[in-house]
Structure formats: structure tokens, C-alpha cells
């Protein structure tokens, strides 16, 4: 082994290192250092090209996770890593040629997938364009091939390339080398940072780092500019599959470079690793498995994520069909209690005009339109108009918080934002791209200040004289929604018109909804669905994004306003309704007595709450649909069915609805759900759903979509449960909350239910503490009737339960419980305020049960 080659470094197998001497086009020989997993007679080769100032070490995880039969080759570019140093700067053209010379020398016949990061992306694409006959696919991570219009390159790189700065920063000192690995999020371990810096210890060894920066063609007259532009244009003609892996926190290559890449390679699949920065292969180690899966799928000849069975026929109704049918109906379609009332005829007219106005103002089919408008008649009209115009609504609710909304909306790459004054101001703070449309009645000056080209009212006027847009095809996207973000960043979920229409058909059929029904929508997502369901709706005079604020009186007033027959509310809202029932007037009670159906969703609803609501809603049949952002509803259960099912291991959510298939992917002792799908009763595993109204895909999350759809046609819900002998589904928790003990996997919900039946316990969470596979079960309980301790000593941190409570919990739990803790309250998710955040409970319990940290400095 040569002296200047990597010593033992974390994650690097010394057997991968090899040296190859290759003559370049000028006949000069250079010695290359290459990582090569050395697979003989490979199915294909992954050619991995690093950027500046890293080296092939960046790809070590991909070498370790190579897809079966694939060779992985990762060279150190000349002048970089452990390859020969160069006396002269190397141009982009020369570097692309060098890479070709190297692959020729190494002997890489057969299919090649190029993998590039940073400026290695451009070079790998240059190689790809010159080896089209071999090219099988393209993978790119946080790179750029061109400066988008009006852009003069990444600010940080421009700074580093400024005259006088470059030599000092990149060569004279290791600032650039060290700064690159300091960008990592989460921070890299010190030994990994040292490994990246190892080949660049002296100014002489860093020479090419500076030359590389100088070769980036920011200005039109730069000698490498024509080559870069040829590559940027050339990749538009590549017809191979492409995978883009992106760290959104990259201060070098921001989202605009991703947008540019996607426009050049519209076939590319994308996975955004939220939280990851520039050094994506470091920040998101899971990227290696994603690449391996994607490459393996290339060989399989199809993409299982797309191989869905043809959906069954639907009624053929579109999201705006009811509006068209009732365009002469002057009865209320949407009533905002304490606000506007909009008739069916007015709403139909407004939606038609707005749709035409949106199209006339440049909103194209497939464009994504973020809606930052409080629930209102404006929001309802805007959503239906966007749909009718063939564009896609992007809806992130306030429950995600500002940072969560920002992350979510940026991930969706929106083309336009429709917002209230507040909404548009938030859009600016979030740095959302795209044009702006103002809701409400802002004046001219305000419009300009908000950066809005139009207001909705202006578009409506504009639309009266404009042609109606063509109806979008049923398989076009219609919406991007977001999961609650209770456990990690909210995930974008894409629906097509067909899937959304199927959902509405199912809801109508399941609950016998007809145009004689009227709905009170006290649950934000459903406040806008009345017009699509073809039933009039009222929104109570409360903040629908704050479910705990709905009183019984407010509910009754909303019911009276539309003579409602149906109520839709979240469990948190219903709890408050039950608590404020004594305040109802006789008239309010009469309005609520006409409700025939109560639907509650968002989280499991305790039977006791449903029973207590009988007093408020005496005629209402209480139903709880089960589902999630990705597919809703899946099953439905009534209070009578809950009572008939009795106690069991988990929450009984009822039987699958007509047209919905539910299967179980059995849980392994390690807590994974990889078994073949089964409908056998009493087998616990991940709940999988097949139905016409399942989401189309996750947005910008290729690897997640691939994993959630790994049984073609089935959506993996992430929920864990079992079917019983009567075909009822019981939910036992979330897959990520399964406790993996030495004696097997344990699910939390059954334990929690048994503990919550103990006198003196109002809530419980069962979580795992310790390393996967050797975890122990810990139960955290909240005592009912308030904390008996005086306020001064009120516990905010959980503490140990007394011996009697601990004994009672252990007896009830039915599994070995290592510790019983008491807390004043359990952390819950923001959106529904009713799902216990078990991950957070587990983190707190683990901290407490680890005990004290030893003092620093010891004998």
C-alpha cells in the first residue's frame, strides 16, 4: 500500500482501497486512489463521484450497502483525496475526460448508474452523457448543473472563490476543508471529520481544492462555462431513470437548484431528507439503503410503488359535481356562524369564475397552490376553484407550528400562494416561491406590500370574461396534505382527483348522506368538504384549528343555523362539548336533538365519552371512523359495536368499510413487520390497507413511499393491530412505539387500556426503554382527580409511583413492567391534542431511569 493512502478510518474497509495508474489525454500518467468493492462479473456498477473538498470516503456507506451483485466504484478525483496531486488547475472538460479514462482503465463494462454529490454531480453527468450506451440511471445528491436564471451561484461558494479569499481559505488554511464537514446536521463525530480532512493536511495537498473552486463557472465568460452549459442542456435528453436525494438545510445548494434539476429531469424521483444539510450522505445515512433499493428496482424491471391494481369504478362524480347540480339552489351551502352565508348558486358561480380567473392569471394544470387562508367562505371557494382549474391544493394546517409549516410547504415546491394578509406575510417569512394571490379585501397598496399580483375578488371579475378551464383528468393530482407531524417532520401526501372522489363516494355511502342532510363541521379538514359531499354545512363560531374551544352552545348554534342532521368533530372538541352541556338553552337542546349522526375522528374516542354525549345529542348515532391522512376512512365503529366488542387487546375500530381491504403484516420479535400479509385473526402486525381512496403517494419522499408500498397495491399504515374472529380491527399502537423486549414485541395500547381501568388512573402510556431487542416496559400514569400534592410541590417531572400503585399497575399490565412512573400530564400531539406522544414519553422516562450522571473527573 502506498504511503499516501487512507489508514484505518471509521466505516472504511481497507480492502476497498486500490490504486490505478492511468494516462490522461495528454499522455501524462496519474495515480488514482479508488474505493472498489471488487464484485466480479457484476450486474452493474455504481460510479460514485465526490465533490469539493471531500473524497471517496463520502461513499463508504454505499459501498457497504451495495445492492446484490452490483459493483461500487468511488474514485478520488485527481488532485483530491489520496489520488496524485496536480501541478495545474484541472478544467471541467478535463475532469469529465479523466473519469472516462479511469473507467476505461478499470474495465467497467455493462450497465452503470452514476452517483454524484456537489460538483461531482456535474462531472458524473458529463460522464453519463458520454457513455449513454452504458448508462442505466442517474443518482444526484445536493448538486447543481446550472445557475438558475437571475442566479449567480451559491453565495458561500462565490465567497470562497472571491479573489484574495480563495487562496487563503481553500489552500493556505484548512478552513474550507473543515467548514464543509462543519455543515453537517446533525453534527458529524470528530473522527469522521478528521477522516474527511486526512488527505488535505498541508497547503500543497490542498492545491486542487482551491483550483476546483476557481473552475466553477459563475460568470458567462468562464472557460468552463460552455462545458457546464452543454451538460446542463444535455441531461434534458437523458431518458434513464433518475433519483434525487436532497438535504433541504443545505446553505450551499438551496431549493432553487433542486427545482432547476427537476425541470431538466422531470422523470426523476425525489427524496428530501428533512433536517439534512449539504453532506447528504453523512447527514442521512439511510440514503445508502434508498439507493440500493432504487437500483434493485431497476433490475426488477418495474417499480412496485407504481404497480397498483386498477381502482374499482367510482360514481364518476367530480369534486365540483354537486356545485354544478345545485347551481340554481339558493339555500345555504356554507354558513359561517357569526359570519357570511353563501348559497349553493352563489358558491357555484364564484367557483366557476375564480377557476377561469386563476387560469387566466397563469395558474396551469398541475401547478401547486398553497392555501394560507383561515377556514372561511374564501377558503372554500378558493379550494374548489383551484381544483376546477386543474391545479393542486397544498394545505398545511397551523397545528404544525410555523417551522413545521415552513418545512412542509417548502418541500411541496409550490407555484402559487393564496393567502390572507397574515398568510401572505407568513409565506414571505417562510421564503415560499411562486406568485401570490390575496384573499379577503386588501387595498391596492396592501396588495403590493404583500407581493400579490391579484386578489381573489379581482380574479373572480377577470374570470367572468375568461373561458372555463378544461376539466382536469381524474388521474391528475388534486391535493397535497400533510400528516400531523407528531413524530418527526410532517409528511406530504398526494391525492389524485380519482382518489379524492372515491373517498367522498365512500363517506356518502357509509353514512347514507343525501342532499337532505346538513353538516356541522367542527373539525378543520372537514370544514371544506360539504360542497363536495353535496350537503350544506355550517362552521361553528370558534377557531376550528383549536378543537378544545368548541362549547356545546357554539355547536348548537351552528346546528340551528343550517338545521343540521350531522355533526363532525374531533374527540378533544367533543370532550369540551360534553363538559359544557349544562349551559345549553332549551332552544339549543332542541337543535342538537335533531342531529341523527355524530362522526368523530382524529384519535380513538373512548366509549365513556360517546355515552356521555348521548345526553347532549339524544338522537345521534355515534360513529367513529378509523383512518389517517393517507387513507380515510378505513373502518367505522358505532358506540353499540364498541360495547358489543367489549374489552380486548387494543382499541376496537370496527370492520373495514365496503370496498376497503385490511390485512396484517405480522410483527417479528425485533419489532419489524416484514411477514407476508394475512387476514388470519389474532395475529398482531402492521395494518395494511387497499382501497380506491388510498393516497397516490408521499410527496418528495421516494424512499418512504417505496417502503410504505412494498406490497404492491397495499398501503402500510404504520399502525399495529390485529383482526378478531368477527373481522373487527383492533389497533394496538404505532409500529415505531412497539416495545422490543428480550421475550418478544409488546404493543402499548392494550396495556394502557388495562391500566386506565384502574381506579385513580386517568391516563397511561406504555413505552420501551433501553436498546432495541432488550427493552423493558415502563408505564407512565396520570392520576385522576388532580394531583393531591399542594401546588407548591406539584410535579412537572414524572416520579416513581408509590408501592401500591406500582403493584396495581404491574398486576393490570399483564407484562413485566420495569418501572411505574407518575406524571402530571402526558405530552400530546399538536394537531388533535389527543394522541399521546409516546416517543416523547419514552425519552423522558429513559432520562429519568438512567439516573444521575457521574461527576466529571474521578479516581
Amino acid at each position, binding site marked *: 500500500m502506498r504511503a499516501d493512502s487512507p489508514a484505518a478510518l471509521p466505516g472504511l474497509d481497507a480492502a476497498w482501497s486500490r490504486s490505478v495508474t492511468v494516462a490522461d489525454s495528454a499522455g501524462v500518467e496519474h495515480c488514482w486512489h479508488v474505493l472498489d468493492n471488487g464484485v466480479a462479473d457484476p450486474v452493474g456498477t455504481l460510479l460514485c463521484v465526490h465533490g469539493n473538498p471531500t473524497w471517496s470516503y463520502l461513499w463508504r456507506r454505499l459501498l457497504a450497502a451495495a445492492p446484490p451483485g452490483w459493483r461500487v466504484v468511488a474514485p478520488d478525483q485527481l488532485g483530491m483525496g489520496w489520488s496524485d496531486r496536480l501541478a495545474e488547475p484541472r478544467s471541467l472538460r478535463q475532469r469529465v475526460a479523466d473519469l472516462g479514462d479511469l473507467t476505461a482503465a478499470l474495465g467497467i463494462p455493462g450497465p452503470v448508474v452514476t452517483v454524484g454529490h456537489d460538483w461531482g454531480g456535474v462531472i458524473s453527468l458529463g460522464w453519463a452523457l458520454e457513455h449513454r450506451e452504458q448508462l442505466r440511471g442517474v443518482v444526484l445528491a445536493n448538486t447543481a448543473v446550472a445557475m438558475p436564471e437571475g442566479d449567480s451561484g451559491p453565495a458561500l461558494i462565490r465567497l470562497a472563490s472571491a479573489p484574495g479569499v480563495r487562496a487563503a481559505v481553500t489552500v493556505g488554511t484548512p478552513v474550507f476543508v473543515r467548514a464543509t464537514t462543519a455543515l453537517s446536521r446533525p453534527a458529524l463525530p470528530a473522527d469522521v471529520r478528521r477522516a474527511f480532512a486526512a488527505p488535505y493536511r498541508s497547503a500543497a495537498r490542498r492545491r486542487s481544492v482551491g483550483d476546483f473552486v476557481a473552475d466553477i463557472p459563475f460568470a458567462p465568460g468562464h472557460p468552463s462555462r460552455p462545458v457546464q452549459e452543454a451538460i446542463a442542456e444535455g441531461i434534458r435528453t437523458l431518458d434513464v431513470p433518475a433519483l434525487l436525494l436532497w438535504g433541504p438545510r443545505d446553505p450551499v445548494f438551496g431549493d432553487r437548484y433542486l427545482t432547476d434539476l427537476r425541470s431538466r429531469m422531470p422523470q426523476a424521483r425525489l427524496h428530501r431528507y428533512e433536517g439534512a444539510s449539504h453532506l447528504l450522505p453523512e447527514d442521512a445515512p439511510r440514503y445508502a439503503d434508498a439507493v440500493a433499493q432504487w437500483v434493485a428496482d431497476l433490475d426488477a424491471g418495474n417499480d412496485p410503488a407504481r404497480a397498483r391494481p386498477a381502482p374499482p369504478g367510482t360514481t364518476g362524480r367530480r369534486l365540483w359535481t354537486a356545485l354544478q347540480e345545485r347551481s340554481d339552489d339558493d339555500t345555504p351551502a356554507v354558513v359561517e356562524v357569526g359570519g357570511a352565508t353563501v348559497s349553493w348558486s352563489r358558491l357555484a358561480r364564484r367557483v366557476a369564475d375564480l377557476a377561469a380567473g386563476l387560469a387566466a392569471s397563469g395558474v396551469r394544470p398541475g401547478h401547486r397552490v398553497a392555501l394560507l387562508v383561515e377556514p372561511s367562505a374564501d377558503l372554500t371557494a378558493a379550494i374548489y376553484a383551484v381544483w376546477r382549474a386543474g391545479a393542486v391544493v397544498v394545505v398545511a394546517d397551523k397545528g404544525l407550528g410555523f417551522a413545521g409549516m415552513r418545512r412542509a410547504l417548502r418541500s411541496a415546491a409550490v407555484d402559487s400562494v393564496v393567502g390572507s394578509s397574515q398568510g401572505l406575510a407568513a409565506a414571505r417569512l417562510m421564503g415560499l416561491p411562486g406568485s401570490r394571490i390575496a384573499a379577503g379585501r386588501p387595498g391596492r397598496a396592501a396588495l403590493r406590500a404583500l407581493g400579490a399580483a391579484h386578489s381573489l375578488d379581482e380574479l373572480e371579475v377577470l374570470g367572468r370574461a375568461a373561458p372555463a378551464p378544461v376539466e382536469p383528468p381524474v388521474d391528475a393530482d388534486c391535493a397535497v396534505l400533510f400528516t400531523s407531524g407528531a413524530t418527526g417532520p410532517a409528511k406530504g401526501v398526494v391525492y389524485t382527483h380519482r382518489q379524492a372522489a372515491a373517498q367522498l363516494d365512500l363517506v356518502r355511502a357509509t353514512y347514507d348522506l343525501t342532499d337532505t342532510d346538513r353538516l356541522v363541521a367542527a373539525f378543520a379538514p372537514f370544514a371544506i368538504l360539504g360542497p363536495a359531499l353535496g350537503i350544506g354545512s355550517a362552521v361553528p363560531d370558534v377557531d376550528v384549528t383549536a378543537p378544545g374551544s368548541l362549547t356545546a352552545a357554539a355547536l348548537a348554534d351552528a346546528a340551528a343555523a343550517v338545521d343540521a342532521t350531522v355533526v363532525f368533530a374531533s374527540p378533544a372538541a367533543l370532550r369540551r362539548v360534553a363538559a359544557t352541556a349544562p349551559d345549553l338553552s332549551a332552544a339549543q337542546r332542541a337543535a342538537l336533538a335533531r342531529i341523527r349522526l355524530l362522526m368523530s375522528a382524529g384519535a380513538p374516542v373512548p366509549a365513556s365519552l360517546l355515552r356521555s354525549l348521548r345526553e347532549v345529542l339524544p338522537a345521534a348515532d355515534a360513529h367513529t371512523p378509523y383512518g389517517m391522512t393517507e387513507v380515510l376512512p378505513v373502518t367505522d365503529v358505532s358506540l353499540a359495536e364498541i360495547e358489543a366488542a367489549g374489552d380486548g387487546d387494543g382499541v376496537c375500530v370496527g370492520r373495514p368499510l365496503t370496498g376497503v381491504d385490511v390485512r396484517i403484516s405480522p410483527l417479528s420479535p425485533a419489532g419489524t413487520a416484514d411477514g407476508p400479509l394475512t387476514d388470519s385473526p389474532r395475529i398482531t402486525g402492521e395494518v395494511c390497507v387497499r382501497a380506491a381512496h388510498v393516497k397516490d403517494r408521499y410527496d418528495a419522499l421516494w424512499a418512504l413511499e417505496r417502503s410504505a408500498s412494498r406490497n404492491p397495491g397495499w398501503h402500510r399504515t404504520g399502525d399495529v393491530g390485529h383482526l378478531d374472529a368477527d373481522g373487527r380491527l383492533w389497533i394496538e399502537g404505532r409500529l415505531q412505539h412497539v416495545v422490543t423486549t*428480550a421475550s418478544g414485541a409488546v404493543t402499548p395500547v392494550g396495556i394502557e387500556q388495562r391500566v386506565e381501568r384502574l381506579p385513580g388512573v386517568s391516563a397511561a402510556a406504555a413505552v420501551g*426503554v*433501553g*436498546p432495541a*431487542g*432488550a*427493552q*423493558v416496559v415502563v408505564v407512565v400514569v396520570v392520576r385522576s382527580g388532580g394531583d393531591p400534592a399542594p401546588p407548591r410541590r406539584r410535579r412537572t417531572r414524572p*416520579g*416513581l409511583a408509590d*408501592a401500591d400503585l*406500582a403493584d396495581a399497575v404491574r398486576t393490570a399490565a399483564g407484562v*413485566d413492567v*420495569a*418501572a411505574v*412512573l407518575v406524571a402530571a400530564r402526558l405530552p400530546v400531539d399538536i394537531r388533535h391534542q389527543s394522541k399521546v406522544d409516546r416517543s416523547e414519553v419514552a425519552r423522558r422516562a*429513559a432520562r*429519568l*431511569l*438512567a*439516573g*444521575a*450522571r*457521574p*461527576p466529571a473527573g*474521578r*479516581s
Partner: protein
Amino acid sequence: MRLLVTGASGMLGRATAEGLLARGDEVTVLQRRPAGLPCREVLGDVADPSVVRRAARGQDAVLHLAAKVDVTGQWTEYAHANIDGTRTVLDACRAEDVGRLVHVSSPSVAHAGTALVGVGAEPADPASARGRYSRSKAVAELDALAADSTSLAVLALRPHLVWGPGDPQLVARIVERARAGRLPVVGSGTALIDTTYVDNAAAALVAAVDACGPVHGEALVVSNGEPRPVAEVLARLCRAAGVPGPRGRVPFGAAYVAGAAMEGIWAVTRRRSVPPLTRFLAEQLATAHWFDQRRTRTALRWRPRVGLDDGFSRLAAWYAAAGPPPRGMVRTSR
């Protein structure tokens, strides 16, 4: 099978020897004082080569428990009993062609004072082990495992916090302090700790004698696999003994400093008694230490028979039958 058990006068050694005898093994025991067991007995120092060779002669296996288990005393005493003793046993095994050695060690040989949360048996580390006992046992375990060879199979077992009826170590000390009203909870009392009921530990050692051979050259932690918060363990021990539970709390930092001070005073004054608190004890009472038992249970084909609750009941029954122990019964050596 013919076996030598060293250190059979302690609670665990006695229980193990009884277990072996009960299943019909031919047992020789070796320790300084008569153990009163119905078997051949060799009395002497475990670091005395002639004594140990005589005891090891003709044996199929040696189960080596003899050790100085303490918190006070000079390093030379620990080195003699634990390091020299183990080397003497190893030499005797090789000299007498004994094929198997089960070396009884301690999880503290790999405990640097930080929380151990569901870990396996990490390598012994004399440099970071806490206190003289742990350090000497770490050296001994490394020596024992280094002697593992084709002719001598060595298996190291690390029973964790062994307790049970008649235990003069852990249980008696806790109970005596609680009775005197001097048993505080160190830190929050929430640290999860593993313990081992004595019958389970003894059964694990018996199982190790059988497993040693196919399984060799590694260390295995033995515990009940039922970790509990330390305050709960103390409270249940006290309840079983019929004494009041822990009273008051001492912050961990204060306990650690107090422990250091007491160690210093005891060392300078060469006191032989047990100081009320040591840094090791403060750490043991305030930081989590519980273990992944999967490898142990697979390797030994053993599972604990007596659950914690059952163990506490048995302890309570023993205390009820024995009545309060006379003062001064608590001793410091096995």
C-alpha cells in the same frame, strides 16, 4: 461430574455447591474456613499453589468463586485474593489437566461509572473499573479469559447484585442501615438496576459448568432480567425484612463527595469496618445498570426460575422465621 468449587462459604458459593451436590455431582470445596457442606473440603488460601493443586487434582471442572469482596482494605489484599488467587487456579487447572473453568466475575469489571442501559458484557477494563475490588476482578477476568485454549475452556460469569435469605452482604447492610434510620435514597432513586436472586445465580453457575466447553472465551452477565428503580428495590428489601423503608434523599453529588471523603478517612486510619458510603456505592445507587440477558440465556440454556416478587416473598419468610439478627452479624468477607 467431579468439580472443585472455590469460595463455597459465601452465600452464592454455598448455594451453588448445594445445587451441584443435589444433582449428584462429586464436589470438592476450597476455602479458608469450614463451609459445613456434606462433601470433601480442602481448607486454605486460594492463592496457595500447593493447596489449590491438591484440590484441583482429578477434577473435570473448576468453579472459581473465591474472592475478596469488599469496599475497604489495601490494594495488596485485593491483588492477592483476586488476581493471584485466579492465577493460581489457572495454573492448577493447566497443571492438573482440568478441562473447564467457570470464573465468577462481576459486572463492575466493565462499569466506568456511567449508566449501563440494557448493555451486554462489555470487555473488562481495569483502567476504568471503579474501586479496588472491581479493578482487581477486571485484571482477574482478563487473565482467566486469556487462558482460554483448546485444552482449557474458560467461561466468565458476572452475576449482578446477588441477594437472598441469609445474605450478609447486600441485603444485611441495607436492612441494618434502614433499621437504624440511616438509609437514604441517593439521587432521584429512579435509576433502573438489575439484581439477581441467589437461587437464580446459583442455577446459572451450574448451567455454566455444563455449557463451558461449547461456550468458552467470553463473559456473560447474569441477572434476573427484571430491572427496577433502585428506590423500589430498596423499599421492597426493607419491606421483606420488616424494617422501615429508605428515608430522605441525598443528592448524588453530595453522596459522591461524602463517599470520597469516607474512603479517604477509612484508608488513612486503616479502619477495617465498612464505611457508610463510598463513591462506588454512590454510583451504584444513583446510576442505571441493567443488562441485555439474551446472549446469557441462549449460551447457558438457563432462565431465572425465581421472579423478583417470589424472591421478596422468600426473603420475607426467612426474616419472619429468623427474627431480627443480632447486631454485629454483618461481616465483610465471604
